[in-house]
């Protein structure tokens, strides 16, 4: 119980800070919106069902690059303001700091997606009536969880390196490939109303397993990553 209280204290602190500065949120939102608008102009209004593969690819590349902006800042902010040591001086398991940062990143990414997904559907999906949005939300949540779990861990690793802004994407992109492929494939299935829902199950399983593996690995190793 005490552990959870401390997790939520860190999450609350990050949310209050972000609400004041709007630093992450604005940059992430603007990036996704710009990407969608640019691709919408590039492809015009003639996006057909057979272009859904491409559209879901555009969506996830936009989300992924926007996430990098946020994930990169999650520890940089603490480090630059000299607060990382203050956090480390608190009698709390390092895993609680990890879990709190994952939750915080998940919230920020999800809010950006909540705003941009309707715009994406408007731009790229002609027949949105039969789409199972509940499943689509599940895919987005599981993919976000994977992105946050891996990104938070790698952000903590890259924070102490000299070229941290460069290091994060270099470490992140190769590791996130399975999540990205599963997100794109499952989204392109779900965004066509006529596709059977069962085609998504295999990709969802990949996402669940990958999320669980990375959450567990990060939970167990985070203490050693933060030391020095």
């Amino acid at each position, binding site marked *: 119980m005490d552990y959870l209280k*401390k997790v939520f204290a860190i999450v609350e602190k990050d949310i209050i800070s972000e609400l004041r500065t709007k630093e992450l949120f604005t940059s992430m939102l603007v990036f996704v919106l710009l990407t969608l608008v640019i691709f919408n102009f590039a492809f015009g209004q003639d996006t057909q069902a057979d272009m859904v593969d491409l559209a879901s690819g555009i969506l996830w590349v936009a989300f992924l690059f926007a996430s990098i902006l946020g994930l990169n800042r999650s520890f940089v902010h603490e480090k630059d303001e000299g607060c990382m040591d203050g956090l480390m001086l608190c009698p709390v398991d390092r895993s609680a700091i990890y879990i709190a940062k994952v939750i915080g990143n998940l919230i920020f990414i999800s809010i950006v997606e909540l705003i941009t997904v309707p715009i994406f559907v408007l731009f790229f999906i002609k027949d949105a009536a039969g789409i199972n949005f509940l499943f689509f939300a599940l895919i987005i949540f599981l993919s976000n969880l994977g992105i946050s779990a891996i990104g938070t861990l790698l952000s903590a690793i890259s924070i102490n390196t000299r070229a941290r802004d460069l290091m994060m994407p270099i470490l992140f992109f190769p590791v996130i490939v399975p999540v990205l492929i599963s997100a794109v494939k499952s989204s392109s299935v779900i965004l066509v109303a006529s596709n059977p829902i069962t085609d998504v199950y295999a990709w969802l399983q990949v996402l669940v397993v990958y999320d669980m593996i990375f959450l567990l690995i990060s939970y167990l190793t985070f203490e050693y990553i933060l030391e020095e």
Partner: protein
Amino acid sequence: MKRKGSNTSSSPIIEVDGLCKKFGRRQILNGIDLRVFPGDFLTIFGSNGAGKTTLLKILSTLVLPSSGTVEIGGFDIKEDSNGVRSQIGLISHNSYLYPDLTAYENLRFYGKMFAVPRLENRITELLELVELEHRKFDLVRTFSCGMQQRLSIARALLHDSPIFFLDEPYSGLDVHASEILDRVLTNLKNENHTFLLTTHDLIKGIEVCTRVAILNNGVISYEAPKGEIDPAHFPDVYKKCIEVD
């Protein structure tokens, strides 16, 4: 056998044995042995790069030692670092405050992290102590350096720890903030708290302490109780210790 986390007044509250720290090939600490007893105020002097901050960072669990053992309040820093953290308060030239949070939000955050009981009352009490109650709901970003240091003192006092580490606490403080820090330290000394101060300021360091040590090239090269020190000649002793190596 000593119980984990327990301390009697006769046993040291801080026990350091053979502490070494290497950063790459550089040996920063080279076998530190130290005993600090409850109620002690130990001032550690040393030139730049002597290892004072590294020593405090190890004692505060921020940096792991390369070898040696450290026990604080009966807790081993490697085996029970959370136990150690609950026993210490660190006042440093770095405030550890979040600039985008208010003074109140900063103290509330740290209070929650240390599970401070009756937190609201404690925050009010401490803001009054450091004379910042009128700026309670202002962002720390808008505070002067001295005000941030005063709030940082309140942050370190939040969980009423028995041990305080002070890393150059007077640097960057204006006269008013220095007076507040002096007053806080006097009150805490009267309540039998234990202190470990690192500083360059020989006069201030001797004034507040009960014991003095000089750290040079990663080892304690001089140690004496305050009663055995002649403040007028101490600068010569200090220079001699530094020059020997």
